[in-house]
């Protein structure tokens, strides 16, 4: 990184801290001057108390139970979406017959927003893990399928021609040319799916659950404890951010040949 890039990064961090800092300051100011009711906007101190409450076991449920409830269901549905969605997208792109059979079904199901599946998921799978895993799966599978499909369809034709001319047979073309060539697009799909999976587990928990961050948020709302709502939302945001960071690391490690690896 050269000097100007470093000072750019510094300026960016500075402005970021400034904008977050002024938001927190405004929050503190508005609440300590009692311009709004604590129910509408709880003061930072209340939120801290709410956090300690949750940390030490809000309504006798330990914090890690909420964490595990949300994370385990999300990862379960996400893993299923990858395991089924990626191969499905790849084979649809590679085999016209699969595309013709599966394509229309996907076109029908795709416009249904994931939360609209929640009632049906409860009827089919009950209010336990299975129903929520199903919601996460339905939501996360879509970007997995679509990006994998695109990734294979967009294989540069000259790469395929070169490989054929070097002696590659169809299975080699798929596994050693089309898939590695499309891996960046597939990984982008998995990253989008991760965000959607996280959003849909929280949405499902808002509707029906006995633990998890969505449950915390909904419980705070029902008991008129808006500080609990805040803590739940903040936890969702921070964990979402963290997962995205971890994913970014994995992505970079898997694609050392990418153009953008030198910058940043």
């Amino acid at each position, binding site marked *: 990184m050269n000097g100007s890039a470093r000072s750019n990064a510094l300026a960016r961090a500075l402005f970021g801290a400034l904008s977050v800092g002024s938001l927190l300051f405004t929050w503190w100011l508005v609440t300590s001057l009692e311009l709004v009711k604590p129910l509408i906007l709880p003061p930072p101190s209340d939120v801290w108390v709410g956090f300690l409450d949750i940390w030490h076991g809000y309504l006798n449920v330990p914090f890690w139970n909420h964490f595990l409830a949300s994370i385990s269901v999300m990862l379960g549905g996400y893993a299923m979406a990858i395991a089924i969605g990626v191969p499905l997208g790849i084979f649809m792109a590679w085999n016209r017959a699969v595309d013709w059979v599966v394509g229309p079904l996907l076109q029908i199901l795709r416009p249904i927003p994931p939360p609209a599946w929640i009632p049906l998921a409860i009827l089919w799978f009950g209010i336990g893990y299975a129903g929520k895993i199903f919601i996460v799966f339905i939501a996360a599978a879509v970007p997995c399928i679509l990006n994998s499909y695109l990734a294979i369809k967009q294989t540069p034709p*000259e790469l395929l021609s070169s490989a054929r001319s070097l*002696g590659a047979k169809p299975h080699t073309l798929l596994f050693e040319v089309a898939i590695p060539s499309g*891996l960046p697009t597939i990984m982008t799909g998995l990253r989008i799916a991760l965000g959607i999976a996280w959003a849909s587990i929280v949405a499902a928990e808002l509707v029906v659950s006995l633990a998890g961050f969505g449950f915390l948020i909904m419980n705070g709302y029902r008991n008129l404890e808006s500080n609990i709502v805040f803590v739940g939302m903040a936890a969702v945001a921070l964990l979402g951010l963290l997962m995205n960071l971890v994913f970014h690391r994995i992505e970079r490690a898997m694609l050392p*040949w990418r153009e953008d690896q030198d910058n940043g």
Partner: protein
Amino acid sequence: MPNNLSYENVTMRFEGRSGAVQALDRFDFQVKSSEFLVIVGPSGCGKSTLLHLTAGLYKPPTGRILLGGEEVREPGPDKAIVFQNFSLFPWKTVHDNIDFGLRINGVPAADREDQIKRVIRLIGLDGFENHYPRQLSGGMQQRVAIARSFVLKPRTLLMDEPFAALDAQNRQIMQEELVRIWQTQRPTVMFITHSVEEAVFLADRVIVMTRRPGRVKEVIDIANITGDHHWRADPFDEVIRRADFQDVRSRIWGLVKSEISVRN
């Protein structure tokens, strides 16, 4: 094994949106074994199509192409093709790009390392084995693409404007390098270019093609003009200043120009 190419009344048409396009019309020609043949002609005259057909990537609807008396039916490592945009596998290092063809054709691992080492030395890229294509200049990438084909000991090397994407200096260096590499095995070369100078410098014979549908307009026997001491045996920048070279160049350019300007 003779590596002569016979084109017998080869015709090729493509079905496009605006009707069928006749790319080649009864192309009839004999290329001698180990000959360096260069094809020039106006854009869209079917030069690239001819090369793709020779590589076996498509099958001509009428006519036949024979390599050493056997009809070309499918692509394979005996008919190596090199494209303008190098078409290296961006996720593979220089070493692994060259290894690809050897590996999928079942060459034992021990022999492969030996051959890779030798061909990397031949193209002067020792020390770059573990670089990815994006870390190399255009000229270096094209050397790797040539090496990747050459290591499979092709009977014919098909080059589709291989140096068109390079700057003038690199192009000159690569022309001289190609002659040196070619002479180590002397496969039959079919080389397409827009540069008449390049054609005159490299070719045993130059074919000038008509505009679409492509046919042979005229054949210029360079080797017959130069005798035993071919122009390509000397440095390019010396050769192009010679009067006899310039005579041939302007004669061929006149033939190409008449095909470009005679419209309707």
